[in-house]
């Protein structure tokens, strides 16, 4: 039996059908949205000053929150991967809280925290509630949880042995991590940044509750979709949605292509 014929069994054909149907459904979702409107209408919608502000704010806040998420994810991911300490399993589970909490609840928790004494003291230095900084913080809370999970997996897959050798050659633990492990983890760091960035781009619930949906102030792309839908401008909502789909696809492709080259 040739190699090709070996795959033509009911078992593999069944699996291919399931995968094909799911992929067809995803393509149909995007195709129907994309063909609902015209290029001219999309172009006009994206030229509106509110939408242009929303695009720039999304790009800037997503980049800021993803960088902050990476700064947190590298040390915490390393700690979870290499550290041996009591209650490690509890810490590991606790770091997943932002992933499992309903997004609106994350926003509400942020809002309530900044009404406490500690929160008000922080707000005297950097105001978060209903500000752009609040947008970044809301994106960071969710994105960081995904970035930490990614970095933990990255360090789990990197042998600790080169680090041990570096220490016998004269490094402290910190130097060994900095000089040997982090350069080897750069592909994973890029993936963690990208995942946090993409996750932040789609964040809506916590931003709506904590930072508000004020036009030309705290309006990011998901907020724009919400506002445009609520006032009945479906074409504008579709235009922004398609832009977000395009950005998500760019991130997906970049992670695959650049990740392999790094």
């Amino acid at each position, binding site marked *: 039996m040739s190699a090709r014929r070996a795959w033509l069994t009911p078992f593999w054909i069944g699996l291919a059908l399931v995968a094909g149907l799911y992929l067809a459904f995803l393509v149909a979702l995007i195709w129907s949205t994309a063909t609902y409107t015209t290029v001219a209408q999309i172009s006009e919608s994206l030229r509106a000053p509110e939408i242009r502000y929303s695009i720039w704010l999304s790009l800037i806040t997503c980049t800021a929150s993803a960088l902050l998420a990476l700064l947190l994810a590298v040390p915490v991911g390393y700690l979870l991967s290499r550290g041996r300490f009591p209650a490690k399993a509890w810490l590991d589970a606790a770091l997943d809280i932002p992933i499992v909490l309903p997004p609106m609840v994350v926003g509400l928790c942020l809002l309530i925290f900044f009404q406490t004494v500690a929160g008000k003291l922080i707000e005297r230095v950097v105001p978060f509630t209903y500000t752009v900084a609040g947008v970044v913080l809301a994106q960071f809370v969710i994105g960081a949880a995904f970035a930490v999970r990614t970095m933990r997996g990255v360090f789990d897959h990197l*042998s600790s*042995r*080169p680090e*041990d*050798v570096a*220490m*016998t*050659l*004269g490094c402290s633990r910190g130097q060994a991590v900095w000089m040997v492990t982090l*350069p080897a983890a750069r592909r994973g760091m890029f993936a963690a940044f990208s995942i946090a960035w993409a996750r932040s781009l789609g964040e809506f619930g916590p931003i709506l509750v904590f930072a508000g949906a004020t036009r030309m102030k705290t309006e990011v792309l998901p907020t724009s979709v919400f506002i445009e839908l609520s006032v009945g401008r479906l074409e504008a909502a579709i235009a922004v949605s398609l832009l977000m789909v395009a950005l998500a696809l760019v991130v997906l492709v970049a992670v695959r292509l650049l990740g392999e080259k790094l």
Partner: protein
Amino acid sequence: MIQLDSIAWRVGAFRLENVSFTVPPGQYAVLMGRTGCGKTTLIEIICGLRTPRSGRVIIGDRDVTHEPPAARGIGYVPQDGALFPTFTVREQIGFALRLRRRPADEIAARVVELANELGVAHLLDRLPQNLSGGERQRVALGRALAAKPSVLLLDEPLSALDEELRDDLAVLLKRVQREHSITALHITHSRAESAALADVVFRLSDGRICEVPAAPGDFDGSESSGASQP
């Protein structure tokens, strides 16, 4: 000299008890024992990568039990070489000297000297993923020797190699150990390796250690490949 004095180690049900032995200066010692008996743990204790529950580690005339790995003056070659994934061969061998902030020309000269000695001079600009198993171990050996350590610790450095390469590298190890007048401790469960290399042989069994007579060996590679000493 490498001296372990009443070393004890325990994790879960696994334990090492009262482990003591001495490798005299300039000798090539082989530590044998079954897989999982604690040989690697012992070498990691000597490296300073694990802290014993009790006992002392002495290297040369210094008690290094509580010193960090960086201060022990050792060279360490793990089983798979554990080369740094993003470093070229040149950077791997020069790493210890770069850490010691030696002048660039001194580092370059030492790298070339070791690369010639170990037969990897033509590989200096390659990354680890472009090296064979034998080349990796040669580079790992050069990296360990660069800062002129007094002690060389080898954790099954030949186990992942085919027979011919194993014999070549065994000859190289013995020659390098002699020429650098270095005290070596080599972990293996191969009697052939032990016969080819050892001046002194220790056996670790049931958490305890005993010295066994070193079988006469030929380390020029001519007869060592099939030698299986009892």
